């Protein structure tokens, strides 16, 4: 474990035993996908963490080891630091719990992730395509997305 920042130390001591998988760099944390939702709940409501802005939620499609990487980027306005939380889900069964209950913005960031990658979110209020037509076939941002409309370089 290289040099850990104060906030990661706090997380590591408090919730390490049953949630955190490992710490990659001083700003990044990897957790397993089952207990994502309660970990995020702690991040938001814990007194000395208070990450109250879900800055960003993206998906990275690692084709060769057949998995999606979900990246959550949180920012706390009180302690003025941001942290990257990432978790991996299998590519053939991309189902994960939604965090829109904790941060309202997650509802639309997750819709964008579904629109581009096909990641399904359980008990999401309004899961449908965000940018593309409803009858669009395929998920464009996946690495193996083929489309004859696209001209190669």
């Amino acid at each position, binding site marked *: 474990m290289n040099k850990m920042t104060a906030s990661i130390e706090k997380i590591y001591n408090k919730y390490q035993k049953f949630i955190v998988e490992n710490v990659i760099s001083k700003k990044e944390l990897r957790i397993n996908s089952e207990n994502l939702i309660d970990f995020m709940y702690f991040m938001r409501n814990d007194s000395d963490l208070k990450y109250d802005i879900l800055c960003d939620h993206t998906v990275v499609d690692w084709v060769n080891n057949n998995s999606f990487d979900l990246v959550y980027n949180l920012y706390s306005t009180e302690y003025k630091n941001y942290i990257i939380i990432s978790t991996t889900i299998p590519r053939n069964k991309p189902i994960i719990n939604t965090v829109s209950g904790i941060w309202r913005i997650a509802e639309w960031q997750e819709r964008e992730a579904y629109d581009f990658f096909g990641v399904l979110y359980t008990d999401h209020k309004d899961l449908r395509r965000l940018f*593309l*037509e409803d009858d669009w076939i395929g998920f*464009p941002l996946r690495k193996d*997305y083929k*489309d004859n*409309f*696209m*001209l*190669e*370089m």
Partner: protein
Amino acid sequence: MESLNKSIITTNLDKMLNWARSNSIWPLTFGTSCCAIEMMMATGSSHYDLARFGSEVVRVSPRQADVLIVAGTIVKRMVKPLKMLFNQMMEPKYVIATGSCTISGGPFIYNSYTTIRGVDKVIPVDVYVPGCPPRPEALFWGILVLQKMIKKNSLIKSTNNKKPVLAALPEGIMLEEIHDEMKKVLMNKKYL
């Protein structure tokens, strides 16, 4: 009918009607991306005032507009609204395609699954104004070319073979008029 076209009455009538039609072109506000800002600069700002050429009234509803200035990238989802808009416009209608995104897809040609490579695949275009985004003066040049086109064809014998004209800036002429500094920059090579 053929002999009628050449007589003095219709040619003068043509000239008067064309003069009226070309001097009061009302544009339709249709900007999708960055060229929309340059179009707003041209139509709605004190430095470049499109009202001088008679097209001050920027109409919102397609029924009252004459020219559809397409400014910005057209994507797959925007094709249906654009077609509907074009069909709703009343004859005689013209289209000016400003910006390289509209003419050919611009920087989004490769690896884009939605951009339409050029708006002339969707609607017939009369004048192309290249540039990314084109300067307001280039848009004026496009409108002046459109006015010449309107003055050229005659009303009575309606020619619908509208040949699109590339309104590129001719070399050298417009530079002097646009800015004197531009000329100063050309003169002393130090800055190049």
